[in-house]
């Protein structure tokens, strides 16, 4: 038990910090997406000059936003599931089932993460069609952004979800050993969820 708590506490703190950073990125990305699309409308209608990059740029942000905030949703129980069976079972057996389901999810996440890394590797070969970085000041001219930077979003999200999943697994093991154990909570949840 001491071992589990010894791992769980620092892991929980790490996840809290990472997810907090992720949420901050996500809300800024959401705001930027709105601005970019408005800019697109403005350029097309008012200036009569459609820009090439807003479409891809906004998608870039949306993918990263999803990847960085979905782990928080996962940690806070935002992934929809049918809990009927678990609720009908006696608490301990229900907890064992819960742990088994977490392990199935972990397999999906780890497998997905590995496939994601391959996908990212392939992304270095292709450049974005419209996203360019003006690096003239470095003497590099206009540099096309590699698609790998977009591809990277999903594996990063899956990695964060793996951390959350491990945390949830440890919590449910701790619960199985001692149902009254004092497990660390994510205090951010209260701050964000309360109106």
């Amino acid at each position, binding site marked *: 038990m001491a071992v589990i708590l010894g791992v769980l506490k620092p892991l929980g703190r790490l996840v809290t910090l990472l997810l907090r950073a992720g949420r901050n990125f*996500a809300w800024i990305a*959401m*705001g930027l997406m709105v601005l970019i699309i408005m800019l697109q409308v403005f350029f097309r209608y008012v200036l009569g000059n459609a820009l090439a990059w807003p479409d891809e740029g906004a998608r870039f942000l949306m993918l990263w*936003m*999803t990847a960085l*905030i979905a782990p928080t*949703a996962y940690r806070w129980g935002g992934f929809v599931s049918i809990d009927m069976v*678990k609720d009908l079972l006696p608490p301990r057996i229900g907890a064992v089932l819960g742990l088994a389901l977490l392990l199935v999810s972990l397999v999906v996440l780890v497998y997905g993460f590995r496939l994601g890394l391959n996908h990212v590797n392939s992304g270095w070969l292709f450049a974005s069609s419209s996203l360019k970085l003006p690096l003239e000041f470095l003497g590099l001219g206009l540099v096309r952004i590699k698609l790998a930077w977009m591809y990277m979003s999903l594996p990063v999200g899956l990695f964060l979800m793996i951390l959350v999943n491990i945390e949830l697994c440890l919590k449910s093991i701790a619960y199985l050993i001692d149902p009254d154990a004092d497990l660390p909570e994510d205090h951010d949840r209260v701050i964000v969820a309360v109106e």
Partner: protein
Amino acid sequence: MLFFFLPLFLFFLMIGLPVFFGMLAAPGFLLWLNGQERDIALLYRNVYTGMDSFPLMAIPFFMLAGELMNRGGITMRIVEFSQAMIGHLKGGLAHVNIMSSMLFAGLSGSAVADVSALGSMLIPAMEKNGYKRRFAAAVTAASSVIGPIIPPSGIMIIYAYVMGESVAALFLAGIVPGILIGISLMLVVGFLAKRNDFPAASRRATWPEKGQASLKAFFPLLTPVIILGGILGGVFTPTEASAVAAVYAFIVALFILKTMGWADLPKVLTKAAMTTSVVLLLVGAAMAFKTVVSLSHAPEIMANFILGLSENPYILLFLINILLFVVGMFLDAGPAIIILGPILGPIFTDLGVHPVHFAIIMSVNLTVGLATPPMGLVLFVTSSVSGERVETIAKAILPFLAVQIVAIFLITFVPQISLYLPQLFGFAN
């Protein structure tokens, strides 16, 4: 072998695996057993490409618009407006609840947003007014399904994305069915109000009061006009319209109504981003699931099976209604559309059902399913908003469900209900 992905998926779902993981684990496991490692990589790529879409971006923006309106006190103005208009009827607050849902549906595209916004305000108010809490919760849940039927609508954006239909046509097609469902729910309330002697507002609002309430609700109620007008007039794409709606909601809340400050912005954006992320991951997973559906020849098998039952489109539509209703009980509308749309859509278009009409049949069926147990997302949210148990609400919702089923049949068998507006505006032939 691969055909078993569907039973396996349902098994995972029933024992409580989150839908997102179930949609990947079931086909992934079978592909792995078959030694089709390459197709598992395809599965992953489809999750990614499924999410990487410009039309889908309308979902986060409409979520954001809804969140902004809610935070900005716009919900309250809509409720006050409905109260001034029909609060004096017997069962006033129940009618107000339904009317507010219909109006709110023009601002938001999700039933869950509708429940959490209106429920937290109207359920306590109804209780104080002498209604039973379970009845208040049931009215809220039943009427919230109008949210994704009257445009804007998250699930219709998903439908249009998967099936290549026009978002504008689907949005227009949803208006009349949404109003029809709203009115039929009001009829139930009217009937119950007489029988159970429901309370009404103490007096009818005077004309100046009505004017005042309308004025206060004017800017919020302009939103659907801007969204639909913009899309229909060819001014913006649906995605742009959704961004405009978000900005408009922001301006209304921050500068016109002054009900929100800059400091509230991060929280609102965070909430919208979080809800979106869950939906987008589900869409990605469902797109991946869909590839396995086609690899497995399930569509052909299912088409043969369905066409073997009968050749009469009416009988088949009736059976599909039942199937979709049952599916809606277990699966969220978005994933259900992505998985079943490509299988069922072509079968029925070949039989002569208009694609836009079929889109509405599917969307209405599946959204009504959102308020039925065991997997009714709307029921869960209503339960947490009201503090009433899911089972209790599920029982109290039955009379409403009954008329909703009648409305579904009307929508299914009278195509003009859905097709009149899109044809009028030239978005469907």
